[in-house]
């Protein structure tokens, strides 16, 4: 029983950490000439990094907003999980927690999709996707599975 609880919490925290890293470190595309991210565009000029703030287009701001919202919702869901753990009746389901976690996963998904669709507009085709982009895509199924587990789980003891 305790093991199950620990496992669920670890899964949730893993998804949360991935979301944080993906949003903050944000190496979304990289190549030899530099990296282009959600927040800055860095290029290697004469051996040194030269960073500019990211372009002020509408879509990149949408991606920023959606990633931040997913972090907020995931944190809220963790907080709600602990609340519901102590206040839910026996046999009840963690609906609220699951809803927030599923919403967070949907936000990550839409952010990653928008970035994928719009990236030919922002960076040239030769750039490869960086690890933050991959982490965002990995965080989406983790958060989704975590949310579904919450919805299915019933409170015991």
């Amino acid at each position, binding site marked *: 029983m305790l093991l199950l609880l620990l496992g669920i919490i670890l899964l949730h925290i893993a998804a949360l950490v991935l979301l944080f890293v993906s949003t903050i470190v944000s190496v979304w595309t990289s190549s030899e000439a530099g990296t282009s991210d959600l927040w800055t565009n860095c290029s290697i000029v004469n051996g040194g990094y030269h960073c500019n703030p990211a372009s002020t287009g509408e879509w990149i701001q949408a991606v920023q*907003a959606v990633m931040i919202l997913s972090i907020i919702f995931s944190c809220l869901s963790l907080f709600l999980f602990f609340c519901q753990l102590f206040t839910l009746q026996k046999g009840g389901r963690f609906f609220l927690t699951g809803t927030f976690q599923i919403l967070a996963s949907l936000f990550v998904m839409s952010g990653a999709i928008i970035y994928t669709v719009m990236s030919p507009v922002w960076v040239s085709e030769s750039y490869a996707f960086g690890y933050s982009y991959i982490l965002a895509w990995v965080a989406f199924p983790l958060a989704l599975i975590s949310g579904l587990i919450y919805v299915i789980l019933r409170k015991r003891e």
Partner: protein
Amino acid sequence: MLTFLALASVVLLGIVPEQSQAIVIYTGWERHALLGSDIRLSCSFFSWRWTSEDVTFSWTYRPDGSRDSISIFHYTGGVAYVDNKGPFRDRLEFVGNPGRRDGSILLKNLEFSDNGTFTCDAKNPPDIVGRPSSVRLLVFEKVPIQAGVITGAIIGVVLGLLVLIVVIYYLMRFLVARRVFSLSVSKHGKKKKEGSQQRQGPAPPADPSKVKAAASEKKKQESRKDKK
């Protein structure tokens, strides 16, 4: 003790400007402007010395993608010399006030070729050691939305909706609870009345309909409770 402190502070104040006698120049970081509009590039400096009469301002321009910079403005000896041969001839105007340490210039009728970095260098003799400061000019066809506006808007709207949903949920719960409470109180009163009337004599014809209505209300409430 106090006199010693006073002397020490005076000496320090005398020494510090000697050591940190560097002039600090301030311009903007980046300027956005519309095609065809005018823009004022500001330049001011901070110096420990009084503004001397030999103060000089000079602006140089480096186009985007080029490594060479050309000088476009120089102010010295109380006279401002503007560009009359380069890319800014007849488009540059000095709007600064050297007496107030302001060496700003006005660029008129901007073109796309004006994209680049403008560097301001000011000297206030004998305070001449300093780093020139650069401002980047970006010319747009239409002014883009500032960074963070849409981000903030989306986050604000979603969180606002969340708060609204929570408030409405609690409001509905509160209203339903109050209605149930008031109905149960009125039913209690009705039951007491009916009990006393039955003891008195035959019930008036209005009573069965009232009883039916009360029963249907009770059923409705029970079904609502079940739904919850």
